[in-house]
């Protein structure tokens, strides 16, 4: 039982095996999409090639080179495959175009070639001698490599008598193809390229005759001699062969079977290129001894001959695939020691498509590559044999180790480590419960507490101890004279409008400042009318007047509380224009302008004076702005808080108001002037001590700030 050789490891396997027992590589190729290489496509028009082939036939016929054993092995094909082959190359009579896709072209070409060889075999020999190697006319040609090819490539296909060539002009070598091919193991070839190459050439089912035999085949004759190195020359048949490299052999066949016009064009172009490089190869090899290697990159280029095995059978240049043209037992043996790095697997053992996968160096170049050691170990098996620095193709061979776990060290600097530690701390802290921070006394809080204690103490001591420590005022404010004069000029019993526009927070100050003034007016018999633009104003006014009444019970205090005046500035304007309409009712709901306090009053100018009590400068300004033009000669007296004085005093200086009493000091002055002690006198000592304490603290704090600033500047300079 014929064995088949594994293309990967090169070991023999049973014929029926599809997968290698040793390396588990696939022995029988699968149908795959083979890329087409136009430059290597076989020629489409055989007619055009015929003259060349014919020419080549003449030359090739004269050479009489012995047929290679590999070629012998190409003939074994089944009859079914031969029958199935309807045509081979597209575009001509011998090789009509077919619709084979690239995926199926491999098998198709393989089949055809087998059929063709089988046909040749039948024509030459009716019996198939499977085990008998094809005797080569060229005795010098080593047979073993070819025998290997035969064993792994073409199955036995005995030729029918119908397939026998009719014409006796068939070369003798060709007639011997049949017997050897039958010696080969059955089954499909393990070298699909060879099968493809076989199918490329011609289906064996065709009647072989002079008319049917392709021109290139007609001129194929076994070599008479195996040329030596010195005598090696490019055979004539080879020089006429088109360059059909092994890489593209499958593609050639696939494209050859493709009826696509684009493929045909590519074939024509490839043909022209192949002829060129073959001619160049011929000339170069004719000058150079056999075995001289050429640069792999020069393949296909003009003027670069390619060494060719002279012992190879002459095949037409148009059909001979590249692997077929390069396959030469002598050359492969001789190139191996010269190349040195070609690997154990010889080129002849590899199918063309595998060889095509190689870099050009490994196929053509036989010179030992320089610096081979530096490029790593040379692959010795598999399709990558001869290559260096490749990954091992047989991982199952040898020790399969678990890759070493390498420690990954992250290059970080100190700052990054610090940041990482900080981030980790922050993240860890998020999940931890943090104790509630106890309030600690900070310096600002201590200072504030100290100031508060001092002030409270300063205020409390005079209150608790009693007496009067702070002396009376010797200097009266400048507005006191004007105010006193204005109040004295108010007619007795005249209606007075009191505006209570201050907040309850500063009621103590305003009451202390207004009490002597109101008492003065009450003693004059004035009629009072209360109004306010503040909702709390009427209540404050009511309380103030009740307190005054209580202080002077002998006096009947006549007043009318007009209540709350809504609208803000608009309400003031409305009241200034039409007071009876703006404040029609009292807080009790009575008709306000019918009360005794407002009898005979209908306009704002009917009032004897307008006394405005306010702690807000804006409120006082509004009353002045809105009522000044409505009251021609009616004086306006303002009793204000100390904080509003800077904004209201210009109105006094401009003459828009006629009296001004400011805060506790104004009330004290009034009380002192009229010798009517009141709240101002009660608060005067505490007020004096408090102001003195604050002044001392301001001075001390300012000095401390200056010293601290100077010391800071000194440190900076140092």
């Amino acid at each position, binding site marked *: 039982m014929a064995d088949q050789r594994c293309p990967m490891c090169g070991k023999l396997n049973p014929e029926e095996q599809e997968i290698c027992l040793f390396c588990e590589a696939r022995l029988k190729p699968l149908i795959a999409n083979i890329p087409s290489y136009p430059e290597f496509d076989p020629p489409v028009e055989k007619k055009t090639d015929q003259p060349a082939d014919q020419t080549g036939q003449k030359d090739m016929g004269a050479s009489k080179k012995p047929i290679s054993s590999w070629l012998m092995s190409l003939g074994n094909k089944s009859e079914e495959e031969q029958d199935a082959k309807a045509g081979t190359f597209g575009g001509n009579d011998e090789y009509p175009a077919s619709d084979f896709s690239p995926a199926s072209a491999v098998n198709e070409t393989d089949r055809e070639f087998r059929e063709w060889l089988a046909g040749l075999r039948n024509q030459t020999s009716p019996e198939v001698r499977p085990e008998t190697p094809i005797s080569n006319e060229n005795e010098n040609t080593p047979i073993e490599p070819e025998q290997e090819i035969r064993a792994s490539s073409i199955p036995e296909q005995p030729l029918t008598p119908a397939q026998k060539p009719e014409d006796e002009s068939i070369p003798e070598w060709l007639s011997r193809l049949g017997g050897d091919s039958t010696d080969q193991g059955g089954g499909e070839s393990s070298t699909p390229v060879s099968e493809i190459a076989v199918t490329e050439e011609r289906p064996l089912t065709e009647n072989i005759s002079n008319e049917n035999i392709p021109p290139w085949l007609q001129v194929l004759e076994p070599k008479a001699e195996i040329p030596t190195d010195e005598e090696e020359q490019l055979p004539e048949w080879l020089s006429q062969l088109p360059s059909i490299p092994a890489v593209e052999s499958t593609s050639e066949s696939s494209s050859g079977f493709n009826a696509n016009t684009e493929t045909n064009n590519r074939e024509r172009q490839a043909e022209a290129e192949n002829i060129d490089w073959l001619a160049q190869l011929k000339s170069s090899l004719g000058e150079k001894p056999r075995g001289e290697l050429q640069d792999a990159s020069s393949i296909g280029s003009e003027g670069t001959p390619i060494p060719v095995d002279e012992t190879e059978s002459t095949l037409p240049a148009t059909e001979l695939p590249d692997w077929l043209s390069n396959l030469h037992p002598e050359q492969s043996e001789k190139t191996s020691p010269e190349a040195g790095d070609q690997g154990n697997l010889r080129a002849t053992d590899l199918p063309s498509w595998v060889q095509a996968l190689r870099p050009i160096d490994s196929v053509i170049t036989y010179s030992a590559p320089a610096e081979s050691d530096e490029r790593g170990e040379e692959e010795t098996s598999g399709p990558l044999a001869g290559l260096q620095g490749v990954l091992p193709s047989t991982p199952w061979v040898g020790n399969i180790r678990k890759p070493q776990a390498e420690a990954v060290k992250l290059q970080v600097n100190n700052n990054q480590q610090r940041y990482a530690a900080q981030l980790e701390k922050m993240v860890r802290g998020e999940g931890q419960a943090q104790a509630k921070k106890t*309030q600690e006394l900070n310096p600002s*809080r201590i200072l*504030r*507490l100290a100031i*508060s204690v001092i*002030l*409270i103490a300063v*205020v*409390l001591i005079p*209150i*608790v101890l009693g007496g009067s420590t702070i002396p009376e005022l010797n200097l009266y404010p400048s507005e006191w004279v004007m105010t006193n004069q204005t109040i004295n000029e108010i007619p007795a019993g005249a209606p007075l409008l009191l505006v209570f526009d201050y907040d309850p927070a*500063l009621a*103590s*100050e305003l009451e*202390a400042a207004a009490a002597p003034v109101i008492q003065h007016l009450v003693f004059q018999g004035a009629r009072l009318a209360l109004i306010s633009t503040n*909702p*709390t104003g*009427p*209540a404050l006014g009511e309380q103030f007047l009740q307190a005054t009444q209580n202080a002077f019970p002998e006096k009947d205090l006549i007043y009318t509380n007009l*209540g*709350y005046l*809504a609208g*803000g*500035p*608009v309400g003031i*304007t409305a009241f200034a224009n039409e007071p009876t309409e703006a404040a*029609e*009712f009292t*807080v009790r*709901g009575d008709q306000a302008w019918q009360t005794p306090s407002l009898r005979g009053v209908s306009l704002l100018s009917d009032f004897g004076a307008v006394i405005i009590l306010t*702690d807000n400068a804006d409120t006082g*300004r*509004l009353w*002045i*702005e*809105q009522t*000044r*033009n409505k009251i021609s000669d009616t004086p306006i007296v303002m009793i204000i*808080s*100390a*904080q*509003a*004085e*800077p904004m209201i005093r*210009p*109105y006094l*200086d*401009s*003459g*828009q108001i006629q009296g001004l009493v400011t*805060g*506790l000091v104004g009330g004290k002055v009034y009380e002192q002037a009229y010798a009517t002690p009141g*709240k101002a006198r*009660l*608060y005067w000592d*505490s*007020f004096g001590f*408090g*102001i003195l304490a*604050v002044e001392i603290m301001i001075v001390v704090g300012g000095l401390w700030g200056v010293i601290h600033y100077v010391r800071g500047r000194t440190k900076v300079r140092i």
Partner: protein
Amino acid sequence: MTLPFSWDLVTGLISFLLTLMILSYLIGDNPAFRIAIYLFIGVSAGYVAAIAWNQVLKPRLFLPLIQGGWTNLLLLVPLILGLLMFAKLSPRLARLGNPSLALIVGVGAAVAVGGAVLGTLFPQTEAAASRFALPLIAEGWPKWLGLLVEALIMLLGTISTLAFFHFSAKSTPRGPQRGKIIDILAGVGQVFVAITFGVLSAGAFAAAMTALIERMYFLVNFLGIFG
């Protein structure tokens, strides 16, 4: 010692406690202070609402509208405008309150601007200019000189303060800069502004001091009742 019951005692006690609760802010924010503050805000809001209803809406809008004749139907206009103001509470209906708000803002702005121009700007400008209406030197040159210096200082303060708030500047390679004269006057005006702010701060402190004195006085007097 038994004290007679009186509401003044009750109100005094409440005032005493509330005063202490407010003064507790010296040691920091605490619940007592917050209670007093919230109580004050609530009572103020309630009192204002009561005043607004009793003294404005009821006697001046609803009662005339209900009890009055057809002449009082015009009061529907302020009623509708007031109700439209509530539309401002809803983002979708906020546009409905725009007419009422426009009326309030427009009238208020007109009154304020008119009053400011006629009541403050013109009179104050006239007053500043009249400072230079000096008496005759024959009445006494010291007095005349004093008045002149006072007028000049007032004029300088007025102009320099206005220059201090002048922010127009020219673009220069070193950045926007004011003119040199303006810069000098602004520097002088800065002094006047600082003095004004100091006076304002002193007045505020004096007012607060008076309030503190009054409260301390109250506390002492209240405790004196029991002592």
